[in-house]
């Protein structure tokens, strides 16, 4: 019964969660608090853990809430249920997009429309970056140094390189995985030692 309810709740969250991570978390919050599954404090702790562990924050939160409510099986049920609406809707969108693209690829209106959408996407991601510039992430000047170094290293490959060796060097350091690991190391050195 509990698993059925978890399935229902997370299908609903997956279906109505427009806008990604934080929108999904507020939906989950509404569900777990109104059903008395968790207290506010317990939920806030789960969100905090979801943000400091690898993986998309909405998925982390769904898995953890599923575990808190229904143990191991609860976690699996919640994780699968939140993805199912995405699978149905996103696959439909992909099919429709492929059909439209194949049919109208040479169409001027289609090209212009897609170009406008792409410009909006850039603004959307810019807005996401801006909203993430919170005091919680930028606690002192050292945070800004880390921000500046990572930002510059990521943009270096955009500039023409003099030699192939410096080009392979900049492409090594514009690796997000490496930069996340190095920034974690920097955090440990700057704030713990």
């Amino acid at each position, binding site marked *: 019964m509990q698993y059925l309810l978890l399935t229902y709740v997370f299908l609903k969250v*997956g279906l*109505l*969660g427009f*806008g*990604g*991570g934080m929108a999904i978390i507020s939906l989950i919050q509404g569900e777990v608090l109104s059903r008395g599954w968790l207290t506010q404090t317990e939920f806030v*702790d789960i969100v905090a*853990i979801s*943000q400091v*562990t*690898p*993986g*998309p*924050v*909405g*998925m*982390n939160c769904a*898995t*953890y809430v599923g*575990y808190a409510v229904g143990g191991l099986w609860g*976690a699996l049920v919640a*994780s699968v249920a939140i*993805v199912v609406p*995405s*699978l149905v*809707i*996103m696959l439909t*969108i*992909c099919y429709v997009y492929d059909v439209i693209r194949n049919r109208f690829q040479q169409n001027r209106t289609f090209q212009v429309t897609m*170009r406008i*959408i792409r*410009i909006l*996407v*850039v603004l959307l*991601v*810019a807005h*996401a*970056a801006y909203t993430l*510039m919170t005091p919680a*992430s*930028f*606690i002192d000047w050292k*945070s800004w140094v880390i*921000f500046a170094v*990572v*930002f510059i290293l*990521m*943009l270096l490959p*955009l500039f023409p390189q003099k030699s192939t060796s410096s080009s392979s060097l900049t492409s090594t350091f*514009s690796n*997000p*995985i490496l*930069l*996340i690991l*190095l920034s*974690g190391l920097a955090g*440990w050195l*700057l*704030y*713990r030692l």
Partner: protein
Amino acid sequence: MIFQLFWTYIKIGTFTIGGGYAMLPLIEREVVDKHHWLDGEEYANMIALAQAAPGLIAVNSAIFIGHRLAGWKGVLACVLGAVLPSIIIILLIAMFFRDIKDNPTIEAIFKGVRPAVVALIAATVVRLATKI
């Protein structure tokens, strides 16, 4: 191909810290720059579609790329790769390390990682603008 998609998404899923947008720099690196599975325009179109559909942006983008490259098997490989690291790590934490967020070392590491993630997303804006 299927295994390569799965492995690529395991990497992307493991190093996404925060919401779906934190996944974008990793997708760009692996999918656009390294494997050339999508060009810059298609990558921007993918972000638009993944954002328009409900659910996790990370999962929606995995569905788009899996579908484009290898049909339904690709979809399964990418989605599993994107969510498995999440599920496994959260289960380990929920079962064994509930106090992890209060650990001062973990806290210090994340003080370094958080501004870096914002920088990665900010750099994505500029890189994306040069690709569309």
